């Protein structure tokens, strides 16, 4: 077939001409050891397949980088995430804050233009500039990344543990059990988030803990739907009946037999629930139930940046880029995981 020829591989001929003495039995070989495929456990196989996948490794590297920056980022300069940089004007004695300054890096500025800044904050370095209150955005973005990373991993946890098992179990048993569980889902999903959060706030201390509980109550529904749909597809397969006849309990069937084959859409859905959760956290913080000002998260920084999006566009860029890279990384890792957990065997 005349496929679009990507580079055909050429292998040079081995032109060695054997001589008489080559024809002697080479008995010293230990042919019992198996050098080609040392026996690999399932997880070791997954591990090797995952790390052979370039995109997955890139994704992992990005996540690790973001985590590192989130931890050490705020420490790199002497600005705290909440302290306002300001200077007192000699004549009027009035305080002037470094508010709404675009990225302001003296070193680079000197490099390109050869001279220093001439404004009041000449020697200050604001890599991402400052927010409209005069706080260093670099510190706040990385401080915010901590909160949002926590939310991201909590979401993955919720999706995997609560959402997926609920969906799989509901799908697996079907009949009355499925009906009841689905009605429960409909009820849980119908209460507006603001009402749930309002009620929670009456007996819980406000803060990231409450946000996590709120997410726990509402974020798993999307995943349960996907898991249930996947279960329907797989449930009828013969190998499920087969493993049941072998005496496998329901739990073993669901998590050992069905799960690996449904991992595809489940991981895709997990990737998509992360940004939704991050923006939910930002919304809850805005309403006053999540983190307290002057703390921040990537989501809240995006909302703040949004307030001045056409006048000071630079403010919304850093948090959105961090979120975008985080999502890109999670997607690559997700694809890598899906490939590693249920590899589609190449045509050998």
């Amino acid at each position, binding site marked *: 077939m005349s496929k679009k020829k990507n580079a055909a591989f050429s292998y040079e001929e081995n032109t060695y001409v054997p001589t008489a003495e080559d024809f002697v039995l080479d008995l010293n070989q230990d042919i019992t050891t198996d050098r080609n495929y040392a026996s690999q456990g399932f997880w070791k196989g997954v591990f090797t397949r995952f790390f052979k996948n370039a995109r997955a490794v890139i994704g992992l590297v990005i996540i690790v980088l973001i985590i590192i920056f989130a931890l050490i980022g705020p420490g790199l300069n002497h600005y705290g995430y909440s302290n306002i940089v300001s200077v007192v004007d000699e004549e009027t004695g009035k305080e002037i804050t470094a508010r709404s300054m675009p990225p302001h890096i003296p070193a680079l500025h000197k490099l390109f233009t050869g001279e220093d800044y001439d404004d009041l904050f000449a020697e200050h370095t604001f890599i991402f500039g400052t927010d409209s209150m005069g706080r260093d955005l670099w510190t706040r973005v990385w401080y915010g990344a901590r909160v949002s990373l926590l939310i991201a991993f909590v979401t993955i946890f919720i999706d995997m543990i609560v959402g997926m098992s609920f969906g799989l179990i509901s799908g697996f048993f079907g009949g009355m059990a499925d009906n009841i569980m689905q009605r429960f889902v409909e009820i849980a*999903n119908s*209460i507006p988030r603001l009402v749930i959060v*309002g009620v929670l706030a009456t007996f819980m201390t406000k803060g990231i803990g409450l946000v996590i509980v709120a997410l726990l109550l509402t974020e798993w529904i999307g995943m349960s739907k*996907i898991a249930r749909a*996947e279960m329907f*597809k797989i449930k009828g397969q013969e190998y499920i009946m087969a493993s049941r006849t072998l005496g496998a309990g329901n739990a073993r069937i669901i998590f050992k037999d069905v799960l690996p084959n449904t991992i595809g859409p489940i991981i895709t859905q997990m990737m*998509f629930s992360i940004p939704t959760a991050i923006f939910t956290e930002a919304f809850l913080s805005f309403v006053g139930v999540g983190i307290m000002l002057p703390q921040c998260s990537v989501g809240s920084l*995006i909302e703040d940046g949004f307030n001045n999006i056409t006048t000071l566009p630079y403010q*919304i860029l850093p948090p959105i880029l961090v979120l975008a890279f985080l999502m890109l990384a999670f*997607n690559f890792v997700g694809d890598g995981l899906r490939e590693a957990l249920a590899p589609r065997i190449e045509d050998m």
Partner: protein
Amino acid sequence: MGRYIIKRVIMAVVTLFIITFLLFLLVRIMPGNPFPSERMSDEAIAKKRAEMGLDDPILVQFGNYIAQIVKSGSFGKGSSLYNGAPISSVLPKAMGNSFRIGGIAICFGVFMGLVLGIAAALNRGKFWDVFCTVLSIVGVCIPSYVFMIFLQYFFAYKVTIFPFYFNNRNFLISAIMPALSLSLFSMSTVARFTRNEMVEVMDSDYVLLAESKGMYGTKLTTRHVLRNALIPIVTVIAPLIVDLLTGALVVEKIYGINGIGKLMVDAITGEGIDYNYVLALGILYSALYIGIMLVLDIVYCLLDPRIRVAGNKKKKKKETGTPAAREEAVQA
């Protein structure tokens, strides 16, 4: 199939009733009172509470509320939101706007999502696949309201193609930008899911068999690949529909559309919590959600014979007991 639907509709009504009661309870537990006022004296507040019947026991209030809906079909009037305007004069218009714009957003989003997803699946590794991956990242990270501002700034200010604010008179033109910005999230989700699902199906044995039968191109894709990939895709689309119809609150706020999204936020975070509006909107949202989930289950049966026929199969085994089963065993 008919019997199944009737059973589900009854279940839906029961569920809706439970949700209404739960919502009725939760709204009253929430902090924030229905009449925030800096000037009203305590007697005046007491008078208004009595007028709204807030001091009766919960169950009595709930009974009146249900009776009111059943008898006059009205959901009462607001306690503070737009100061007591009856729900029947505010909600229909808001629903009209939200559903029409949400509808356009869904159709456009899902259609483009499917097209892009299919294109990406058929061109693995090439341009469309990369484009689909990038779009799914962008569509998810950039909130719809940021995209809305972007559209408004460039297409209604720098170049005046679209009106700057939503105005009801020329609905279609002013609906395009909000619908486009709202469709971004659904488009990227659907595209991503379609691509992943189709890639999985395309590697399956029955597609290999179909190809070896001589099927190719669009015929292969539509008849074999898409049908099998549709189940998870449909599952993703269903909740998107509900969210789009009700969840566009920030975009509605920016573009000046009074839809149910904005109505709900005003009802809770506006001038005090408006019990009747929160309840009416809550019931509307859950009715919508339950309805779409019912449709989703029906679509499952249509799409996947294993679910539909599995139902009959059980029946079959009971009826024919041994003969068919034995004959089948012999035959195999």
